[in-house]
């Protein structure tokens, strides 16, 4: 675990105070701590420690930058299920700058960002959603500042960066072929700060808050996988935790969305499910306050928390199938092969014919001189 300085906000109330002010009971608070512990695969003995840490943690300053994005990540977080404890924990941080959620606008908003960056230099958490266009800085600007400039400026004084959503984590939809804006991820630009990728389109709300809770509790980065995703939430694939997995193993597949197999809840592999190659917590935490997740609703996984998911073939094409138009390629290859084959055959025939024509027959006369 990479230890970084715990982000603290000056003279702010603690998380515990903030929660009590909002009418959260001790029981409800501990329940949240237990849920967080189990989500992050921590032993139950850690629950009191999480509770204590959260109770006393000063609210960290958080600056949230939105670049080329659709606000879906913010929507996911705020509209998940109101009011959730996760949502309140989110209230309990000091969100100093967020386009969608802040009251201030225009110069006042930018002033708030600059002030927070100055006051909490080196200690604030920078949350980014959306990709950054490098094709032309004018493609996306905030208060006349290009996304790349604002990211570099804000990252400079950040304790850590959380890239929320697939756009910030991997480039996302703006980066989809042919990537008209030259979109890149946060990690493509910032290389000297700890970055946690929380991909998903959008990410699960509890995953975003879980990562923030981890910060508050331990003041460090959670264990990350090779794509910078917290192992606690992205350690297992959808496929490995899917309740329809037994049907995959048995080879029982829904062929269409309304056939017998679909009604019986069989595996959605043939309908394009990307579960086997997708790492996320959907099958475990589910969505809408634990109600359901796409596969449970009868729709294949799109693989939205993986890089390139928007370019990895059609959403309804099976994972095993080629992404290019192979039939057409094969026909062209066969035609080209036939042409080359006929030419090669003709050359072979010509050289055979030439060999025959140049063949010299040996007669008895050729042999006689030597005998003499």
């Amino acid at each position, binding site marked *: 675990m990479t230890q970084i300085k715990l982000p603290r906000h000056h003279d702010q109330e603690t998380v515990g105070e903030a929660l009590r002010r909002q009418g959260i009971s001790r029981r409800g608070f501990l329940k949240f701590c237990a849920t967080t512990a189990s989500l992050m695969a921590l032993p139950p003995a850690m629950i009191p420690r999480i509770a204590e840490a959260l109770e006393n943690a000063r609210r960290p300053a958080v600056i949230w930058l939105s670049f080329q994005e659709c606000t879906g990540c913010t929507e996911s977080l705020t509209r998940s299920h109101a009011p959730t404890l996760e949502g309140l924990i989110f209230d309990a941080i000091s969100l100093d700058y967020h386009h969608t959620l802040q009251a201030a606008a225009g110069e006042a908003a930018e002033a708030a960002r600059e002030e927070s960056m100055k006051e909490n230099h080196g200690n604030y958490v920078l949350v980014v959603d959306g990709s950054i266009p490098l094709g032309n800085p004018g493609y996306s600007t905030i208060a006349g500042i290009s996304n790349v400039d604002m990211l570099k400026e804000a990252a400079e004084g950040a304790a850590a960066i959380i890239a929320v959503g697939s756009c910030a984590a991997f480039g996302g939809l703006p980066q989809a072929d042919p990537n008209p804006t030259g979109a890149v991820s946060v990690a493509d630009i910032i290389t000297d700060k700890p970055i946690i990728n929380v991909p998903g389109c959008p990410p699960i709300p509890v995953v975003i808050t879980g990562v923030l809770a981890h910060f508050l509790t331990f003041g460090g980065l959670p264990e990350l996988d090779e794509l910078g995703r917290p192992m606690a939430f992205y350690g297992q694939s959808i*496929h490995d935790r899917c309740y329809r997995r037994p049907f995959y193993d048995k080879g029982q597949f829904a062929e269409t969305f309304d056939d017998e197999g679909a009604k019986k809840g069989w595996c959605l592999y043939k309908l394009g499910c990307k579960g086997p190659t997708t790492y996320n917590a959907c099958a475990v935490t589910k969505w809408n306050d634990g109600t359901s997740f796409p596969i449970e609703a009868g729709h294949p996984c799109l693989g939205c928390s993986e890089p390139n998911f928007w370019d*990895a073939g059609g959403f309804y094409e*099976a994972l095993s*199938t080629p992404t290019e138009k*192979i039939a057409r*390629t*094969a026909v062209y*290859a066969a035609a080209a092969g036939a042409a080359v084959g006929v030419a*090669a055959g003709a050359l072979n025939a010509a050289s055979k014919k030439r060999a025959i024509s140049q063949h010299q027959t040996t007669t008895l006369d050729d042999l006689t001189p030597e005998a003499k």
Partner: protein
Amino acid sequence: MNASDWLLWARGPAFEIATIILVMGMVIRFIEILMLGRKKNLAAAKGSAMAGGLRTMVTRSVPEAGVFKRSGFTIITGYIFHIGLFVVIFLLAPHILVFDSVLGLSWPALPTTIVDAFAVVTILALIAVLVNRLNNPVKRYLSGWMDYLVWGLTILPLITGYMAFHRIGFSGPMLLALHIMSVELLMIAFPFTKLSHAFTLFLARFYNGSITGLKGVKS
């Protein structure tokens, strides 16, 4: 390149390249073989070349008693891994989806667990074949580098496929990418190695059978 990039490459450009090499290569080889032509046989026919050819295409699949006695192991393991390869390649549901997407043809699949069992037996048979090849002095003497290469290229997709299904060793995207790329290696090697017998064997059998058929000799 991360695992997703590899998978994208394997399912996209790499598969396209492999298809072009496989299809072009095999079509060129076929046309070259057919254009070699045959010398006109001036001897009086003592039987039907066509009937002899067609008969041999089938009868060569059935080992004669004497041959079986001498090379029973080769024949049995050979049958096991050839049938195993057929089942694994053509009767697994995700594979049928590939054929369907390329050829537009689809057929029923076997339950995945049964195909899985076939895969294990096929891998074991291929290992047995290699051990036998190395231990048998005559077979070892007759084997060249291409035989070992072809063996490796054949067993690799089986092993990566087994790993991908049971999710051993790598992440999901990487396992699938490795499996598809191992198949693409096989496709690329096909026209240039003895692997092409899968396409040319019936042509060769017909050729042999038609010669003996014309002479009125049993083949």
